């Protein structure tokens, strides 16, 4: 955008008497102020507005549990007989070990008192939760393509404490889906991003096809 200020002869007849206007630099400064403000609010302020932090009901210690179980991730996140995936364990499954307050730590006590004894399912936050329109089956990925849990879920299995969970106020999605970096540039922060194109890219790479709509949608 440029401002043409050359004074030619065909100035409109009703032009007001020429006054000295603002200089180009001032105008540019205004432009930069506006530009900078928008950039800053968009890149820094907007994400704070868009996402809300959702506290975890229990600060689960994966590392601690991994030491206690025999079968790695499969011990609690397993395939059912029909090939469906169990996801987060239910209270009944936790109860096998957590029947009563063991007093190991604050989290364990909270878990036992607020959930086990109250017979209430834990509303776990699911970082990788996909919307209802997505059909995702673990079986072809884990059993068919022999992928590791960490390929998609990162190193959550080794963590001692749950990393923060944020929810998109508009869509209800976990922030992991879009990725924590608003620009979606660079390596993902915790675990691979999970927007549709992220799935598609991998499918193209691995199967030479982006697949078909119904393969992943219901």
């Amino acid at each position, binding site marked *: 955008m440029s401002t043409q200020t050359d004074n030619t002869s065909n100035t409109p007849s009703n032009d007001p008497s020429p006054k000295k*206007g603002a200089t180009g630099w001032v105008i540019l400064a205004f432009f930069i102020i506006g530009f*900078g403000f928008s950039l800053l609010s968009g890149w820094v302020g907007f994400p704070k507005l868009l996402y809300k932090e959702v506290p975890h009901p229990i600060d689960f210690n994966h590392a601690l549990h991994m030491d206690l179980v025999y079968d790695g991730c499969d011990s609690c996140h397993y395939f059912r007989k029909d090939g469906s995936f169990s996801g987060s364990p239910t209270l009944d499954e936790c109860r096998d070990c957590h029947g009563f307050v063991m007093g190991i730590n604050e989290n364990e006590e909270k878990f036992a008192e607020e959930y086990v004894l109250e017979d209430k399912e834990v509303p776990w936050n699911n970082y990788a939760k996909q919307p209802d329109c997505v059909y995702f089956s673990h079986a072809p990925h884990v059993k068919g393509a022999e992928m590791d849990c960490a390929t998609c879920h990162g190193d959550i299995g080794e963590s001692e404490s749950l990393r923060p969970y944020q929810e998109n106020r508009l869509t209800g999605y976990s922030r992991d889906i879009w990725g924590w970096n608003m620009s979606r540039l660079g390596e993902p922060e915790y675990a691979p991003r999970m927007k549709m194109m992220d799935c598609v890219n991998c499918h193209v790479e691995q199967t030479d096809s982006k697949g078909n709509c119904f393969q992943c949608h219901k």
Partner: protein
Amino acid sequence: MKIDRRCFLSLAGGLVAGHLLSPVPWKVTDDLSIWTQNWPWTPVPETGPVAWKETVCTMCPGGCGIKVRMIKDRVIKIEGSEDYPINRGSLCPLGYSSIQYLYGPSRVTSPMKRTGERGSGKFEPVSWDEAISEVSGKLDALRKNGQSHTVACISGSDKGTVPLLFKRFLEAYGSPNFIRTPSGQDAHETAAYLAQGHSDKNVGFDLENATFILSFGCGLLDGGGAPGYQFSTYSRFDRRHTLVQVEPRLSNTAAKAKKWLAAKPGTEGALALGLARVIIENGLYNRNFIENHSFGFEDWTDDNGAIHMGFKRMVSEYTPSRVAGITGLEARQIESLARDFARAQKPVAVCGYNECRAVADIDKTLAVHALNALVGNINQSGGMIVFPDPEYTVSPVEKDRIASTGLTKPRADMAGTDKYPQSRYLLNLLPDILMSAKESDLPVQALLVTGANPVYTLEDSTTAQAAFAKIPFIVSFSSFMDETAQYADIILPDHHFLEGYRDVPPPEGVGKPITGLSKPVVSPRYDTRNTGDTIIDIARKMGGSISNSFPWDGYEAFLKEALKDQYRDLSRNGYVENVEKPAALDVAFATDSGKYEFYPTRRHTTGNGDEAKLPGFKETDVPGKETSGGVILIAYKSPRIASGAVANPPFMTKTIDADMLKKEKLFIQINPETAGKLNLKQGDEAVIETSAGKASVKVDLYDGIMPGLAAMPAGLGHTAYSRYIAGKGVNVNALLQPVADPTYGINKAWGIRAQLKKA
């Protein structure tokens, strides 16, 4: 430094440019569309482990085995069970839709006490204790007043352990008034009694093994009777099977039949006799059966030396040409049908069941039974099977003086009285009896209703409603807010069948005595109780001998005791077959002659002649005045409309064709020829009026209906349940009127004269 307009323009430019390079517009656009993809008001079904559970459907008496797909504690889908011997995988639309009764606005969610006018649907929830105390209090007061015989129970079935508990309760309480709703069973029971001498037996047809089914108006594929059994039989039909349908209207069954014979309604008996004559004349009957196991085929002489006319001589008058004249068919058709039937490998003739109405023409039924006897298929594979009711082993009832006195009183519905000595239940007569009785000595002072919706299903339902309104105290045991529940003073809601135990007695008309067990697949969703438990609770509350007659902790304990050995198999397999084989012919008949009686010697008649006893054809009077330009209204069954005690759920209503129901208007089917005479066109608004009532309808021209008739589907026009069910079409029962058989009391009117006029 000067700041002017251009600076602000520049600032705005900067803001816009920066904005475009920030994530805001793009992310908001994207997220807004994602928001529309996840609107919070569009439900997201929860996932979880899947489980399949087997049980038996009790939405109708058909007794189909089902498997229920569960996710956690939610019922997701119902499908037919392949291993269940009745339906073998088939299931009707009502079975599939029954989840819409487990969930949904039609449920009665807790005991209720009426607060508004009868039928207004105004109730307040009360506790079980309060509700049961109220009922037992009322019943106790009547009993103390010497009026125990004025308590009646209307039940949708008289088989199974829950009706057994009600019968037991009435017995201990002192009332003879256990009344089963009218059904196809009425005429068959009577015919089985007259021809075979059994008083407590079931008549079924082994359709699955038959090769030639001659159906006199049975809606085998119209959703009546035991639909799962009938559909699964039909699904296994191949080229060797033949279905012939005799019916004045091209029903779904007729459409699928190899041959559709549109005999005039009410003349089926004559057709059966005509066929019998051709069979006998051509020697196509089963000689062994006729010679060794039948009585009254030929003329016979009684103990007094009087000669009586035999069946053979009686039917000799039914020549094909005469029958053609009566039925409107061609003589040629009758002759060839008779030959095909008699020559078929396993022929069977059926009638009565699965018709849309319980029309009990004793003569017709006897004639059809006789056809089966002629081809010797009684108790044979693929034939007409007679088997006993399931036996229950429970201790005898303890009766006090009041009970014993009460039980000797005549029944309120006049069944078993001098007038109708051979009838068991005559609910169809009750409304008129109540209407003509004085308030002070109303024969029914308290009414218990279970598994039935008589306010809706009784013919001439307007009169029935008025009659029920007179009853001072009505208790409903319905799970749903049906029309009768709306008339009740107290509702003691039963579980949905997926929530509780219940034995499922052998379905009417099915050729094998299979008892099923309906088991809970989900825990009760609402404050409901199994009706078996409720009746035990009421009995307990009443104390004394009544309480003593109900020593069980609850219904399940009673069920186990009543079913004894069968219970284990039932709970393991889901069903038991009660008897291995039907009785052999030499022990099959309990008549005086010990044989199948073509001449029913026991028949109760007004006259004494052979004509009256033998099942000759008598024209039935159609109620109503004959007028020029009139039509005869008949009701028909559609497989897409539940017309029994339970209304059709929203899923089924959704399947109803646009030429059957449009907005709140029901279509009446008439032949284009009839329409021409009445000056009606397709889709015209019209008014149909009978002596029972009047309704506005739309006209549907259908070539498949006999000229002069008008047909309306049964099962619409509900006024209760929920807005998804009520207010759609007309209840055809409100336009029909029963005509009592002079000697048996059961309804024998197949239609009613009506005026159909353009609105």
